[in-house]
């Protein structure tokens, strides 16, 4: 990441994203100064617990944060060469679905119940490609076959499909126009484990086929290890640790990431107690000026109450934590 920008083929270039919700009860700081870069064809895992701002980040990339009460401020947001900050609604509608697309968490509600699945895929194709209705429907059937659903089921309604099949349809819709950037918001959370594996397999294959970049939003570290090239760990509306899969998983540096890994169940010792991260997620209405994780951090000292700078440990690995300024500091990862 210390390379100059013009040498990299970036699908997403996001600088200093801030999202806040101005409600009557106060201002809720959902995302605070987030930077994100994704190279073409790469997959980034966005990890963090509930309320860390993962979905809000995704929605603000699509300019879909409800306004009011949402306020999105950003230094730079470029998606596949389009400046998303100064753009008309018309252009935005062209970019959505064509350059950037999203898979929603719950396949049960992400499909319109009154249209056949074939029509729903065809609609998205009709919007972005100059084809006739018949061609769009034929393409829709191809997409269905691609995600492993027999083409003759295109004329059926969403309620006639199982959950896993609905999620495949949702994926087919999202990929119908071969977007350059795909955001998957916990795509497997609503599915059982066997279907999860199938859906992840499918997404990986399709991604390789179409060179699509992916932001995988999840709280499941196993999925990240399986699918992603890079990982960004979010806490309190910002990225606390960012790097390649190898950096974050094997050379964990941030105390929060450490806590995440330590709280995983131990497969070798089934009687072992789970180790949660103590404390609760902080209230986004009442953000501390310093490190958001400080109140829960086992390595807390006074310096943590100052604003934290993003520091590169290696070329690819960045953290926001001042503890490494202390001589000889290291975190304690449980051995498995």
């Amino acid at each position, binding site marked *: 990441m210390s390379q100059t920008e013009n040498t990299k083929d970036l699908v997403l270039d996001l600088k200093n994203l801030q999202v806040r919700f101005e409600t009557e009860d106060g201002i809720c700081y959902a995302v605070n100064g987030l930077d994100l870069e994704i190279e073409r064809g790469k997959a980034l895992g966005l990890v963090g617990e509930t309320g860390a701002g993962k979905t809000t980040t995704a929605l603000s990339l699509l300019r879909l944060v409800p306004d009011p009460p949402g306020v999105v401020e950003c230094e730079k947001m470029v998606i596949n060469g389009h400046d998303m900050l100064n753009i008309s609604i018309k252009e935005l509608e062209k970019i*959505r*679905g064509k350059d950037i697309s999203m898979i929603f968490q719950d396949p049960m*509600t992400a499909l319109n119940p009154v249209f056949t699945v074939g029509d729903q895929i065809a609609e998205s194709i009709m*919007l972005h490609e100059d084809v006739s209705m018949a061609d769009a429907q034929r393409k829709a059937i*191809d997409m269905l076959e691609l995600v492993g659903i027999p*083409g003759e089921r295109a004329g059926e309604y969403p309620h006639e499909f199982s959950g896993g099949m609905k999620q495949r349809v949702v994926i087919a819709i999202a990929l119908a126009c071969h977007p350059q950037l795909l955001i998957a918001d916990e795509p497997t959370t609503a599915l059982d484990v066997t279907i999860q594996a199938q859906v992840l397999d499918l997404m990986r294959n399709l991604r390789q086929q179409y060179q699509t970049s992916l932001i995988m939003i999840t709280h499941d570290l196993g999925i990240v290890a399986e699918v992603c090239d890079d990982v960004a760990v979010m806490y309190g509306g910002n990225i606390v640790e960012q790097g390649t899969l190898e950096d974050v998983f094997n050379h964990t540096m941030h105390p929060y990431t450490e806590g995440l890994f330590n709280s995983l169940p131990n497969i070798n010792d089934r009687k072992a107690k789970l180790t949660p991260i103590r404390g609760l997620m902080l209230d986004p209405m009442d953000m501390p000026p310093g490190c958001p994780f400080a109140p829960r951090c086992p390595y807390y000292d006074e310096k943590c109450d100052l604003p934290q700078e993003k520091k590169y440990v290696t070329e690819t690995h960045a953290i926001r934590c001042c503890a490494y300024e202390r001589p000889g500091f290291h975190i304690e990862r449980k051995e498995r």
Partner: protein
Amino acid sequence: MEENTNRISLDEYKKYKKRSLAADVWHNYKKSPSAMVGLILIVIIIVLAIAAQLIYDYEVDIVQQDLSQRFIAPNTEHLFGTDQYGRDVLTRVLYGAKYSLAVGIVSVAISCAIGATLGLIAGYYGGVIENVIMRFCDIFMGIPSVLLGIAIMSAFGQSLIVLMLAVGLVYMSAFARTARSAVLPVRDQEYIEAAKVAGVSDLKIIFSHVLPNSLSPIIVQVTMGVANGILTASFLSFLGLGVPVPAPEWGAMLSSGRQYIRDYSYLTNFPGLAIMITVLAFNLMGDGLRDALDPKLKQ
């Protein structure tokens, strides 16, 4: 890929095309006996109305008076009897179907087109737009509907077109309210957000995603509206404000037969029955249509 496309385009694509929305709805609709009764009744009424136009001459059969034939009770020659001017009641009831059907259908088309569109926009956008539209409708609803009808009729004069417009405007705000409340739960569904993500424009989302999902209450409102429209038109005619007098509008017939109700009740019974059957037929059809349009109720 190429081979794949060819295989689908021949057999499966045809199979897929066969199931159009209209065919699906009809397939479900015909399963309900009561809905079919409603549909058959409406078809019969329409056929009779058209036949009456072709068979009877307005000047000779409908309005020409023959005082020697006054107040003949129903018999084989005059199935519904004759009225105080010696006109055949059956002929007049059949001929009058066109007024009631036209007023019922056109006035609902007017109120649904304006009201439902306003309601959809109000429900989808919310905020200031919703407040302005809905408060406007509230003001409209605050005026008693009969009074509003009378006001419009007396301001623009008595004619069939004005009657349709008056009835249409009276029920407009009811449509706006129904449409808005039907949109509210649909608006926040994930598939609407998914449509936005796919790049669908707001206008298209409102009419092709939100509307079909909030259609059932609107359809019920439409069929009730046709029935209500017929009744309101009859009522205005009854007050002497509807279709001008010699025309055999059912409400006007009720009104003119009212003074003889003690001695010659058939003068009011038959037009009243005609109104009742027509209204019932539309209600039955509306019920069946609502069920048929819901894909989840499909077997």
